C-alpha cells in the first residue's frame, strides 16, 4: 500500500468518490460555522468596528491562494518526474480554484482597506505580490487552454509553474524592497506560536481557515475527477471514431 497507487485513475476515482461526500459536508460545515460565528457572534473590534469581520473571509482565502500554488508546484514536479497523469490533471484543476481565492483575497482586502486605510489600493509589498501571483495564475491557465495536445500542455505548464514559482518568490522580495507598506505582518506566526489575535477572533478564524482548506481539497478532487472523465470520454470518442 503506497501513495502512488492513487496515481491509477480508477483507484483515484474510487477513493475520491468515497471521500468527497464526507469532505463536502465537513467543508460546508466548517466554512459555515467559521463565517457565521465570525460574522454574527464575535464582538465588534474596539477601533475598527464591524469592518474587521471581513477578515474571516480575507485571511483564509489568502492562505489558500498561496497554498494552491504550492500544491500546483508539487503536482507539477510529480508529473515531470513520475509522469502520473492524475497529478498533472490535479495541478490543472487547482489553478482556477487558486485564482478565485486570490481574487477573493484581493477584493475583500480592498473593501476592508477603504474604510480602515482610507484607500482601495496601495502599492504595498503584500498587495503587489498578490497581484503578481494573480497574473501568474492567469498565464498558467491561459497556457493550458492554448495547447491542444494534453501531454504537451501538461509538460509546458509544469515548466512554467516551476519557473513561475522562482519568479514569484523573486517578485515577493523585490517589492518588499520599496518600503514596509501598510499591510500588517503576520498575526499568527507558525514558528514562534505567539499570536496577536484575541481568542474570540482566533477561534472562528481557525475554523474558517480549516474550512477553506477542506473546501479547496474537495474542489480539487471533484475537478480532477471531472478532468479524468473528460479525458476518458475523449479517448472513447477517438476509439469509436477510428472504428466507424
Amino acid at each position, binding site marked *: 500500500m503506497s501513495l502512488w497507487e492513487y496515481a491509477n485513475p480508477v483507484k483515484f476515482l474510487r477513493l475520491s468518490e468515497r471521500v468527497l461526500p464526507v469532505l463536502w459536508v465537513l467543508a460546508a460545515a466548517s466554512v459555515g460555522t467559521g463565517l457565521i460565528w465570525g460574522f454574527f457572534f464575535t464582538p465588534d473590534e474596539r477601533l475598527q468596528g464591524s469592518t474587521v469581520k471581513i477578515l474571516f473571509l480575507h485571511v483564509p482565502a489568502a492562505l489558500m491562494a498561496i497554498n494552491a500554488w504550492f500544491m500546483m508546484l508539487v503536482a507539477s514536479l510529480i508529473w515531470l518526474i513520475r509522469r502520473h497523469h492524475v497529478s498533472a490533471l490535479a495541478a490543472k484543476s487547482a489553478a482556477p480554484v487558486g485564482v478565485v481565492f486570490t481574487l477573493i483575497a484581493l477584493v475583500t482586502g480592498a473593501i476592508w482597506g477603504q474604510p480602515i486605510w482610507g484607500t482601495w489600493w496601495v502599492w504595498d509589498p503584500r498587495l503587489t505580490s498578490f497581484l503578481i501571483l494573480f497574473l501568474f495564475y492567469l498565464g498558467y491557465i491561459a497556457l493550458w487552454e492554448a495547447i491542444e495536445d494534453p501531454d504537451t500542455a501538461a509538460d509546458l505548464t509544469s515548466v512554467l509553474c516551476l519557473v*513561475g514559482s522562482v519568479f514569484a518568490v523573486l*517578485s515577493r522580495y523585490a517589492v518588499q524592497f520599496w518600503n514596509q507598506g501598510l499591510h500588517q505582518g503576520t498575526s499568527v506566526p507558525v514558528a514562534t506560536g505567539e499570536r496577536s489575535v484575541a481568542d474570540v477572533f482566533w477561534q472562528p478564524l481557525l475554523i474558517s481557515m480549516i474550512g477553506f482548506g477542506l473546501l479547496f481539497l474537495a474542489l480539487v478532487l471533484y475537478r480532477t475527477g471531472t478532468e479524468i472523465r473528460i479525458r476518458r470520454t475523449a479517448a472513447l470518442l477517438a476509439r469509436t471514431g477510428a472504428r466507424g
Partner: protein
Amino acid sequence: MNALLIRDLRLAVRAGGGLGLGLAFFLIVAVLVPFAVGANTDLLSRIAPGVLWIGALLACLLSLDRILALDFEDGTLDLLATAPVPLEAALSIKALAHWITTGLPLVLAAPILGVLMSLPPQGYLWLVVSLLLGTPALSVIGTFGAALTVGIKRGGLLLSLLVLPLYAPTLIFGAEAARRGAAGADVSTPMLLMAGISAGVIALMPFASAAALRINLR
C-alpha cells in the same frame, strides 16, 4: 556557435523590421508619454527613468516571438535540436543575438530619449548602466517565453501574458536604480540586486528554455 550567432544577426538585420521596429517603438513611447501626461518638465524629469524602462521593456517584448517562430516554421529548430551543440547553448546564443539586435540599440538610444523626457543630468549614466545590465535578463527570460509558446498559432498575446509577470523583478530593481540615479541617491543596492538577477537568469534560464523547446519539438 559563432556561425549561429552571425546567422541570427544577419537575418535580423536583413529581414527588416526587427532592428528598426523596436527602436521606433521605443521612440514613439517616449514621444507619446508627454502627450498623455502633459509637457510639464518637472513631472517628466521625475517619471523619465520609469517611462524609459517601461518603453525598453515593451520594445523588447515586441520582437520576442521572432526569436524562435520563424526558425520553428522552416524547420531550423529541429536541425538545431539534433545538432552537436547542446540546445541550451543554441538558445543562449539566440538570446544573445536578440539582445544585440534589440537590447543594445535600446541602451544606446536611451540617453537621446532621455533628452526628450528632460531626464536630470546626473541620471544619464545610471539609466544607461541599469539598462545595460538589465536588458540581457529581458532577452533571456523572453527566450523562455518564446520557447513555451512556439508551437501555438498566434501565440503573441499569450507570450506577453506569460512573460510580463516574469519581467516584474527586473523592472522593479532596474527602474529603482535608474530613479535613484536620477535623484542623485545611492544606486548600489538595487543595481547589485538587478545584476544578480541578470547573472542568475543568464546562467539558469537556458535550461528551462531548452526543456520547454524540447517538449514543443517532440
